[in-house]
């Protein structure tokens, strides 16, 4: 099956300012694909080009088989969208917004069903301006899927939400995917990307610098794993021979083993085999945040 989104060397300029220089990635059907990057890296520009809201200046773009530069209109009918910095009029009621947006694409589901499905029925007659941040995101998600799209774009959904609402919003995103819709998620939150995404493209300074699963990125850029423990034993030479160990450092009783892969298990097995059972054996693995900072080269 061809990828649902295929971008090759996307380029976008605003006058002389280059917003995106060389963005290449593809999204497979059914996954949650994250686009992660610092502010101003070109994330929003990228997804807006994919939706045909901005015109790409260079590169090959294919979304659901359409070129967004040529077939923006039929494309937009088949995708769902939650835009950054986009709102509804304060005085529009929840049901009116659903009714309006469902009427845009006649092939979609009846809005009453969508309203029930996304738990908005209790807020049917509430005005948009009176909803909490989390409820507004719930409505945006419902509006994005009201036309039963194969692909949705979510751009910075949880910015400004409290931790509770963020969790709820994450559940909504998973729910969208579980219904078979492919999700492209733009975020600058590491925890969000790590929690939700099957694969992540890291965009930095206008280009894609890494694409992998969260685990893959950590494995590749996280500087491996570290295992520490304390012991009185003097000769730890056997540890150098253990599989996937890179180095052993001993400072008094404190021992630090660096390596990769399933380091903790391997080290533990070797220690037990040599009759050592340290009670403070622990493993530290780089988080996605560490990886991100490594890749984007920012100071900690």
């Amino acid at each position, binding site marked *: 099956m061809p990828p649902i989104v295929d971008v090759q060397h996307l380029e976008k300029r605003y006058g002389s300012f280059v917003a995106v220089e060389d963005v290449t990635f593809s999204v497979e059907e059914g996954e949650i694909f994250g686009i992660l990057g610092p502010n101003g890296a070109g994330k929003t520009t990228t997804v807006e080009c994919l939706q045909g809201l901005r015109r790409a200046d260079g590169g090959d773009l294919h979304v659901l088989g359409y070129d967004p530069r040529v077939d*923006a209109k039929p494309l937009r009918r088949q995708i769902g969208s939650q835009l950054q910095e*986009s709102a*509804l*009029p304060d005085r529009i009621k929840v049901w*009116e917004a659903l*009714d309006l947006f469902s009427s*845009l694409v006649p092939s979609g589901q009846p809005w009453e069903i969508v309203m029930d499905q996304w738990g908005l029925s209790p807020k049917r007659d509430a005005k948009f301006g009176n909803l909490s941040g989390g409820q507004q995101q719930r409505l945006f998600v419902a509006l994005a899927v009201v*036309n039963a799209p194969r692909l949705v774009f979510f751009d910075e959904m949880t910015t400004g939400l409290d931790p509770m609402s963020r969790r709820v919003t994450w559940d909504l995103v998973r729910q969208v995917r579980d219904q078979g819709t492919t999700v492209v998620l733009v975020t600058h939150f590491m925890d969000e990307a790590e929690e939700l995404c099957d694969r992540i493209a890291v965009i930095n300074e206008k280009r894609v610098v890494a694409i992998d699963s969260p685990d893959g990125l950590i494995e590749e850029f996280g500087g491996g794993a570290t295992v520490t423990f304390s012991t009185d034993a003097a000769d730890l030479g056997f540890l150098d021979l253990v599989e996937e160990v890179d180095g052993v450092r001993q400072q008094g009783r404190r021992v630090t083993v660096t390596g990769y892969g399933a380091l903790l298990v391997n080290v533990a097995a070797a220690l037990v085999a040599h009759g050592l059972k340290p009670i403070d054996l622990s493993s530290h693995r780089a988080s996605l945040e560490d990886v991100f900072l490594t890749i984007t080269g920012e100071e900690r």
Partner: protein
Amino acid sequence: MGTFLKLSWVNLKLFLREPLTVVFSLALPLIILFVLGGVFGNETPQPGEDVVFRGIGAMSYYVPAYVALVVASVCVISIPTHLASDRERGVLKRLHASSVGVWAVAGAEVAVACVLSVVSGAILLVAAWLVYDFEPAESVVVVLGVFVLLTLGFASFGIFLGSILPTARAAQAVGMLVWFVMLFLGGAGPPPEVLTGAMQTMSEFTPLWHAVLMMQDAWLGLDAGLSWLIFSAIGVVSAVLGLRFFRWE
């Protein structure tokens, strides 16, 4: 078509939920009309007096003029403010992302302006009819035709302003400014005959001046020449420029 109708209906409801805008668009022209009525009365001028109000009673002059003015107030203040506010908040961008076209957005603005113009025009006429003894319309059909033309022309002008003005605040300020300048120079404030030469020249450039003449001509069976042509030209140019400079964000 479905999109256009639905969007128009939602916009109309949203407009009615903004009490201040409703009061302003509908009530202000009415208040000014009654002040003018109190000041000028409705005496038909005697032979030998200076000719003001095109030689007819003040209220016979002002009532048709204010029918034109309420259309201008709906279109020149409400449309730009609403359009710019929707753009500023990202509503237009969101509609665009769901493939709503520029024609549906602009069309919905015009449709709402039409409904509001009819309602406010009717309120104005009924209120004036209860209080003043002004001349009835010569031809209801011609008056209605002119009314439609005025609404389309002013709505285009409003969409033009809404397209070029970046924010809702700017749109509201400019809309009000344009409206008040038109009110005083365009024949809906002091009688045009008392304006200085320079003011009269400026008034020729306001769409309201031509709108007022057209409505009075239709109402009273007068003929002031090419106003309909000039007004239509302003409307067409506004529509073209409005669509040309329309931005989603």
